[in-house]
């Protein structure tokens, strides 16, 4: 029995249809990330769940009860905003206590709970500071403690880490996950950072233009993307347009080169498909190769150092690929080297190619942007 359900949510803003039939089911204690580029509708969906907006169609159900028409201050949900949400006239302690004070109850009990929560988020030492005296990361920790204080049924987070430094982001996201697991709270998390979503969620729902493109576990999303958009959005992916040559052997033709792709079996001859190959699965060897199976020949035109791995761009008559190789090996293949790229037969994914143009991935904004 799902704990949180979003049923057929629609939201139209006149000039743009923000949500076009969103369906989500989340079990109790589970963590789901809504992942997508700016404008895909993920924040709209979150705000509907929180109650700051009403859907044009559809329902929101929590623990079996329809909350669609309940005011936001009665929904018993805790929300962490992207930034600037702490009350400036109150200290960290007072901010966290706010929700409890509204509900009444014993003062000593309240104080104790506030202290415990601030300890939990690692701010035991800064309880009496004002928001303008706290760093961005610390502010968000207070915001988290404040949302948790009221023991909400659902925890909602709206890109809470987008405005923070890279290192703080990594640190904080792991803490959020740790706390969430410890308290067992059902959580809905919105982000545009796919690494963030993949690393801490139980489920990921990739959104684009108001629709859910695919929903599943992080591993599923990475290794088995269901649409070209998801394939491009999650990690880096080589997308090769090809036409099926022979469905029984699984051969396809890509720019004049015949490739064997196991996933092409059971396809009709003539089908247009998209072969998806992860860069780390591409094998590189110097030289023109001997025309072995599944090889593309080209020249290394750029190298991008990424730490443990170096990303090489290979371009040739029939090749336009990205390959990730161990940095040590990349040193032996400097720019200008002719290389042979071997694509795995197994492990490449296949998608239908329609006449629709492939969705473009917009440039992701910098850390502070939205």
């Amino acid at each position: 029995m799902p704990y949180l359900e979003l049923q057929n949510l629609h939201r139209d803003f006149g000039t743009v249809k923000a949500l076009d039939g969103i369906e989500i089911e989340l079990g109790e204690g589970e963590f789901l990330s809504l992942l997508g580029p700016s404008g895909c509708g993920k924040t709209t969906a979150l705000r509907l769940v929180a109650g700051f907006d009403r859907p044009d169609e559809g329902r929101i159900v929590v623990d079996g009860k329809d909350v669609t028409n309940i005011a936001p201050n009665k929904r018993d949900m805790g929300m962490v905003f992207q930034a600037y949400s702490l009350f400036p006239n109150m200290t960290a302690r007072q901010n966290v206590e706010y929700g409890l004070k509204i509900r009444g109850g014993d003062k000593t009990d309240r104080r104790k709970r506030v202290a415990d929560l601030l300890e939990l988020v690692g701010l035991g030492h800064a309880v009496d500071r004002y928001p303008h005296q706290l760093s961005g990361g610390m502010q968000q920790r207070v915001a988290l403690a404040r949302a948790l204080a009221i023991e909400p049924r659902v925890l909602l987070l709206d890109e809470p880490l987008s405005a923070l430094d890279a290192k703080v982001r990594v640190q904080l996201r792991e803490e959020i996950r740790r706390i969430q697991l410890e308290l067992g709270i059902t959580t809905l998390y919105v982000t545009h950072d796919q690494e963030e979503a993949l690393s801490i969620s139980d489920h990921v729902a990739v959104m684009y233009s108001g629709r859910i493109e695919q929903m599943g576990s992080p591993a599923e999303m990475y290794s088995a993307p269901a649409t070209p958009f998801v394939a491009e959005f999650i990690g880096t992916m080589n997308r090769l347009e090809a036409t099926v040559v022979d469905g029984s052997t699984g051969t396809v033709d890509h720019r004049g080169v015949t490739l064997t792709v196991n996933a092409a079996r059971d396809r009709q001859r003539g089908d247009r498909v998209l072969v998806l190959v992860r860069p780390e699965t591409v094998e590189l060897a110097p030289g023109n190769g001997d025309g072995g199976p599944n090889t593309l020949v080209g020249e290394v035109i750029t190298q991008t150092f990424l730490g443990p791995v170096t990303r090489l761009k290979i371009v040739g008559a029939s090749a336009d690929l990205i390959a990730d190789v161990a940095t040590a090996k990349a040193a032996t293949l400097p720019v200008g080297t002719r290389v042979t790229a071997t694509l795995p037969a197994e492990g490449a994914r296949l998608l239908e190619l329609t006449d629709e143009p492939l969705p473009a991935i917009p440039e992701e904004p910098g850390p502070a942007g939205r």
Partner: protein
Amino acid sequence: MLIGAFQAKTKGYTVENLRVLFNHPYIDAYKTSIEISLVTAVIGGVVGLLVAYAAIREGTPRWIRSALTTFSGVAANFGGIPLAFAFIATLGPLGIVTVLFRNHGFDFTQHGFSLFTKTGVELAYMYFQLPLMILVIAPAIDGLRKEWREASSNLGASQLQFWRYVGLPVLMPSLLGAIILLFGNAFAAYATAYSLTSGTVNLVPILIGAYYSGNVLDNPHLAQAMAFGMFVVLAVMMLLYIPLQRRAARWAK
């Protein structure tokens, strides 16, 4: 140039002149001035806040805010004779509203109301106090971040609780600063009161003006002492205003 203005007053200043200030009618003038200024500042402040908030909040069409801001820009500068005339035309003995009420049986001039009293001056002053408040407090209202209201609601608080715990406290420094500004504005006003009452209401600026228009010119130093008195009142006002501004700026981050 500003120093020149100050020096002019202190040159003509002796302790004796200052002491005279505490007698009638001078002390009355100060009392009246302060009272009018206080009343219009506080009422103008509160009402201005409500009107400004009404225009800015969600749900109100955008054009209302623009219309209110432009109008306030004009009205805040609308003082002196034109303003006095407009009010005489409205609430004077032959004013439109007065006549309207009279024709329907209620003659409030019989009930002791006259435009040419303290209350009348206060009513007229509101015409530029209110817009000034609206102009000054609007940026502060803008500064109330949407996230605060949403977070408050999310944590279970009602609208009223939000205003009590977050909204008003955050606005308070700006609010008080604005009221102080309004006080100074009213205290220094001369033209409106003069043309409204031709000097019958006892205000400090009017007294000073009286000296310089040649009505009573026996002791120019006295006038300067009175001016100095005004300056003191206003200086106190400034001293209160600056720390409030700083506090407001800090929270606006």
